[in-house]
C-alpha cells in the first residue's frame, strides 16, 4: 500500500523541499559574490566571510539572538504547555473558547502594536530596557503559538487514559509526567520549534523593547535596509544555516542511536 504511490509522492516531496530551500540557496550563492549586491554575480570571493570573522560586534549580536531565541522558546513552551493543560481542564466550551481567544490576541495583533504596548508596559513598570525586557517580550508573544500546537494533541487524548492512571493510584504529578506529557510530546516539540521561529524572525517588537546596547540580528538587518543589506549578512546567514543543519542532523542521529529507533523525538 505504501510502495505503489511512492515515486509520485517522493517527487512531490522533492518539489516542496526545492521550493523551501530555493531562496536560501539563492542567499548562499550570493554570499560568494565579489560584486556588492544580490543582482548580478561578478566573481567568486570569500571576502564577505573574512569580513564577518573580524566583526566582534556582529558576533555578540548573533549570540544575543540565539540566547534570546532558545531561552524564550524554552520558557514559553513550559508556560504554554501548562496553560494548554489548564485550558483543557475547563469543562465548559464557552470558557475554553474565551481563554483561547485571549490566547490568540497576540498572534493577530501586528508587531508594532505589540511592541508599542509592551514598551509602554515596561517603562510604566520601570523595567530597564535590554536583555530582560526583550526576553520577556519574546516569551510573551511565543506562548500562544505553543498553546495552539499543543492543544490539538491534548484534545485528542482520551481522558480515560488519565482517569485510569489515577484509579491505579498515580499522583497528579505522576499522571502529568508519565501519561500526559509523553502523549503530547510531539505537540510540545512543534510548539518549541515554532516559538523559535517567532523569536528569530521578530523585528518590530524587539526594536521597541530593546535598549542599552542590546541588539538582535533582526533589528540589525532591518536597520541596514536603508543603506542596503551588505553581503556579509548573506555570509552570516549561510554559516548559521549550515551550522543549524549539521546540528539538526547530528541531534537526530544521536537521538535515534541512543533510544528506540526513531521514537525519541516524539516520546
Amino acid at each position, binding site marked *: 500500500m505504501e510502495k505503489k504511490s511512492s515515486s509520485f509522492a517522493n517527487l512531490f516531496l522533492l518539489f516542496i523541499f526545492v521550493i523551501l530551500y530555493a531562496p536560501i540557496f*539563492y542567499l548562499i550563492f550570493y554570499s560568494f559574490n565579489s560584486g556588492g549586491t*544580490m543582482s548580478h554575480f561578478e566573481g567568486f570571493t570569500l571576502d564577505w566571510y573574512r569580513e564577518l570573522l573580524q566583526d566582534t560586534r556582529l558576533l555578540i549580536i548573533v549570540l544575543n539572538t540565539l540566547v534570546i531565541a532558545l531561552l524564550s522558546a524554552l520558557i514559553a513552551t513550559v508556560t504554554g504547555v501548562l496553560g494548554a493543560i489548564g485550558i483543557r481542564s475547563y469543562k465548559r466550551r464557552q470558557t475554553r*473558547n474565551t481563554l483561547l481567544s485571549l490566547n490568540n490576541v497576540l*498572534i*493577530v495583533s*501586528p508587531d508594532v502594536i505589540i511592541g508599542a504596548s509592551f514598551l509602554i508596559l515596561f517603562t510604566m513598570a520601570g523595567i530597564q530596557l535590554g536583555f530582560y525586557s526583550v526576553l520577556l517580550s519574546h516569551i510573551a508573544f511565543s506562548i500562544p503559538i505553543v498553546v495552539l500546537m499543543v492543544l490539538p494533541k491534548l484534545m*485528542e487524548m482520551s481522558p480515560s487514559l488519565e482517569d485510569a492512571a489515577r484509579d491505579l493510584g498515580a499522583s497528579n504529578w505522576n499522571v502529568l509526567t508519565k501519561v500526559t506529557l509523553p502523549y503530547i510530546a510531539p505537540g510540545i516539540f512543534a510548539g518549541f520549534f*515554532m516559538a523559535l521561529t517567532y523569536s528569530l524572525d521578530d523585528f518590530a517588537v524587539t526594536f521597541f523593547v530593546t535598549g542599552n546596547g542590546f541588539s538582535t540580528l533582526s533589528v540589525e538587518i*532591518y536597520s541596514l535596509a536603508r543603506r542596503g543589506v551588505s553581503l556579509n549578512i548573506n555570509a552570516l546567514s549561510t554559516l548559521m544555516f549550515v551550522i543549524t543543519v549539521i546540528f539538526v542532523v547530528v541531534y537526530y542521529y544521536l537521538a535515534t542511536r541512543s533510544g528506540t529507533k526513531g521514537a525519541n523525538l516524539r516520546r
Partner: protein
Amino acid sequence: MQNKTFRHLFMLPYALWIILFVIAPILLVVYFSFFDIHGNFSLTNYKNFFTATYLQMTLNSFWYAFLITVISLLVAYPTAYILTRTRHKQLWLLLIIVPSWINLLLKAYAFIGIFGTHGAANQFLEWVGIGSRQLLFTDFSFVFVAVYIFIPFMILPIFNALDKLNPSLLYAASDLGASKWTTFRRVIFPLTLDGVKSGCQVVFIPALSLFMLTRLIAGNRVITLGTAIEQQFLVTQNWGMGATIAVFLIIIMVGFMALTSIRRRGV
C-alpha cells in the same frame, strides 16, 4: 478538590501572562482607540473605520488571508501525509522547519531576486518556452511567498495528527472494501480534523495582519489592515486610528476562533 488546586497551580504562570501581556495591552489598545488625533476623547476613529477605504481594506485582508490559508492547506496536507510515510520522518520534518529560521527580510530579498524581470524564475519560464512575464508585484507572487512563510505552521499540526493515526484503522477500512478516497474522506480526514483546524488558525490569524510582504513582494498593490496599522502607528502617528483597526482585527479573530473551535474527544 485536590485536582482543582493542582490545576490552579498549573495555570498560574499562564494566567499571569494573560493578565500582563494580553489583557493589559488590550485595555491599552481599546483606551487609545477612543482618542482622536488631537488627543480628544471621541468616536471619530470608529466612524472613520466604516468608510469605503477601510472596509475595502478589511475585505482585502480577509480575502488574502483566506486564499493563503486554503492554498497552504492544499499543499501542507499531502506533504504532511507523505512525510509520515517516509523513513526518517522526524528528520524531514525538522528540515521543513529549518528554512523558517532564516531572517524573513533576507528571504523576501531573495524572492525579489528570483521573481524579478531578469530573475531565475523568468529564466526558467523562458527556457521552458512560456516566455518571461512580470511575476514580481503580482497577486501570484504575493500569495506564493506568504504561503511559503506559513507552510511549516500548517504542516506541523497536521503531521502530528496524521502521525499517530492507528494504521489498523486504515487496514480495517480497506478490508471492508472502502476505496482510497472513501478511506480518506470517512476515516483519515475526520480523525485529523483537529490538526487541520489548528493549522488553519495559526495561518489565518497572523495572515490577517500581514504587512511587510505587501510592500516587498506586492509593491503595495495589496493593502491590508496590517499595513494600515503600521502606517497609522509609525508614519501618521495617529495611534488612536491604529488602535481602532487593531480592535477590529481582534474581533475578526474571535469570530474565526469560534468558527474553528476544537471539540474535546470523549466528553
